[in-house]
């Protein structure tokens, strides 16, 4: 680690703001996970951490390391990209599993969408 580089104040302010913003969004997501009443409502708040929370933290990391090493260090950007590919897969599967389990236990959820029905127009 190079001790000679002193980070400019604006950069510290920016990195701090991004970190706090990201963690606050993650906290709101967790609050939603605990507070909301219905399972399908609870599927929405975790997206806060995996989108804007991850973006803020990754941006902070990129800014900090790029100035520290005096060259662009972009690899933290892989985390949001990876998340945006993997999170939909698990969320989708979980939503289908929840629909399936609720239907078999007779709870009030929409019928299975079949072709020709529910077409609307």
């Amino acid at each position, binding site marked *: 680690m190079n001790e000679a580089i002193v980070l400019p104040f604006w950069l510290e302010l920016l990195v701090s703001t991004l970190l706090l913003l990201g963690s606050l969004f993650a906290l709101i997501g967790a*609050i939603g996970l605990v*507070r*909301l*009443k219905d399972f*399908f409502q609870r599927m929405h708040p975790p997206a806060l951490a995996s989108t804007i929370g991850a973006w803020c933290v990754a941006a902070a990391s990129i800014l900090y390391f790029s100035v520290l090493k005096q060259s662009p260090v972009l690899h933290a950007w*892989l985390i949001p990209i990876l998340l945006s590919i993997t999170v*939909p897969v698990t969320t*989708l599967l979980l939503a289908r599993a929840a629909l399936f389990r609720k239907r078999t236990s007779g709870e009030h959820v929409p019928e299975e969408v079949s072709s020709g029905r529910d077409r609307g127009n």
Partner: protein
Amino acid sequence: MSRLFPAPLLSVALFVLWLLLNLSVSPGNLLLGAVLGILAPILMAPLRPQHAHVRRPWAIAKLIGRVGLDVIHSNLLVARGVLRAGSTPPRSAFVHIPLDLRDAHGLAALSMITTVVPGTVWSELALDRSVLLLHVFDLEDEKAFIEHFKHTYERPLREIFE
């Protein structure tokens, strides 16, 4: 040419991924990245039943920008909805959306977009791909929502993939 590069976009993406992971552009890493980018799609070609035909890079860029803005906007909406959940519970509902998009890759992209944007979760797709069941966190007007959804996401995807 097409035998050597069955999926040129995938090759470029793998190459860039390799350089990013290693954080260097030394000749050795450039060579390894190029080998990975050329070999991996060739080895994976038998596994992929169909190729995506992607057109209109400008439409893709516009769609990505649009999704980015929507993510930020709906993040704020969902955050507000969560914090106010005690006094005004969110009006969550399932919405049936009739789809015109049939391309498998386009539908995959659509499911990714709907799930990444907080406030909507892709729940189920009819077997013949004509109806989509979507769960919406806070639904104001069903007709307007369906109109908005088809206009902002489905139409550009049809332009890109069909």
